[in-house]
C-alpha cells in the first residue's frame, strides 16, 4: 500500500488537489529575450569567470553566436520579465504562478529545492527569444527522517522561438507541512 500524507493536514489537502493533475501541461509561454547582462550577472554570482560568459568576442572565438549562459542558468531563474508584485507573493516570498504548483497560500506549506535532471540540448546564448513549457510530471508523498514530504516534479522544456530545444529539465521540489503541524 502506497504512503499518503496524514488526513487533515495541509499536505494531504495539497496532495489530493495536485496529484490528479499529473501529466497536465501547466503553462506554455514566451518568457522573453535572454540578454548578455542577465548571463553576465548570473556568471558573476556563481564565480564563473570564463570569458565566454562575459565577452562576446571570446564567445565567438569559441564558436558561439554571442555570450553563452552557464549550464543551469535557465533552470535557476525563478521569475522572467518584471515578476510578481510584492502584494501578490506568498508569505514565504514565492510567486504563486511559478512553474511548480505550490498549493493555496493558506496551506502554509514550506518549500525547498530537492534536485533536478537537466538535459542540456543546445547552447543558450544572448539574444535568444525563450519559450517555456511546463508539465506536471510527478507528485510523490514520502515519509522521511524529517517528517512527511511531498516531492513535486515538473518537466520544464525551454526552446527558442524557432522551436529549437535548449534545455529539458526535470525539476523536483519538496513540500512540507507548516512547522507547527510537522
Amino acid at each position, binding site marked *: 500500500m502506497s504512503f499518503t500524507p496524514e488526513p487533515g493536514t495541509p499536505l494531504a489537502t495539497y496532495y489530493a488537489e495536485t496529484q490528479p493533475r499529473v501529466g497536465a501541461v501547466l503553462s506554455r509561454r514566451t518568457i522573453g529575450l535572454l540578454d548578455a547582462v*542577465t548571463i553576465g*550577472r*548570473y556568471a*558573476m*554570482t*556563481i*564565480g*564563473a569567470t*570564463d570569458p565566454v560568459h562575459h565577452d562576446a568576442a571570446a564567445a565567438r572565438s*569559441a*564558436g558561439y553566436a554571442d555570450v553563452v549562459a*552557464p*549550464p*543551469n542558468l535557465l*533552470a*535557476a*531563474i*525563478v*521569475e*522572467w520579465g518584471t*515578476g*510578481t508584485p*510584492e502584494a501578490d*507573493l506568498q508569505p*514565504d*516570498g*514565492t*510567486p504563486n504562478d511559478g512553474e511548480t504548483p505550490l498549493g493555496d497560500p493558506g496551506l502554509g506549506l*514550506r*518549500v*525547498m*529545492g*530537492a*534536485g*533536478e*535532471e*537537466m*538535459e*542540456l540540448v543546445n547552447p543558450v546564448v544572448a539574444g535568444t527569444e525563450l519559450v517555456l513549457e511546463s508539465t506536471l510530471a510527478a507528485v510523490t508523498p514520502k515519509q522521511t527522517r524529517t517528517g512527511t514530504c511531498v516531492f513535486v516534479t515538473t518537466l520544464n522544456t525551454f526552446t527558442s522561438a524557432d522551436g529549437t530545444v535548449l534545455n529539458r529539465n526535470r525539476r*523536483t521540489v519538496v513540500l512540507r507541512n507548516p*512547522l507547527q503541524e*510537522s
Partner: protein
Amino acid sequence: MPVTFETGDVLPPLKHTATALQLFRYSAATWNPHRIHFDESYARQEGHAGLALHSHLRAALAVRCITEGLGPDWQVTKFAYRLRQPVYAPADLTYTARVTAAERNRMTLELTEENPSGELGFEGTAWVSTTAGATP
C-alpha cells in the same frame, strides 16, 4: 586533441565559501523572492538553521567543478543531482568530481559536495562530451 581522462581520475576539487552576500546576489540575479535565502529571521521561523543556499547555486558550483576541471574541449550534456541536506551560509564547501566511465568522446562523472565536517550534502552525475570543435 582534447585532454583525455580515465575512469577513476579525480578533477581538482572546487573549494568555495558561500556567504550571505552571495546568496542575496544570487536571489537578485535569478529574480528569486523566496525569503529562506535572504531573510534569516523568516528562515528560522520555517525551522532552518540560517539562510539556506539555493539548490540551483549549489548545482552551479558543482557544474563549475566539471567545466573548470575539464576545460574548453568538453561540454556538459546532462546533469542530475539531488540534495541530501540543506546548507546554511556562511558555508565552506568542497565539490569533487570523479570519472566513473570514459570513452573517447564522452565521459560520466560523479559529483559530491562536502562541508568541513565531511558530511555529504549533495550528490550528482554529469555526462560530458567533447565539444564539436575539439572532436578529432
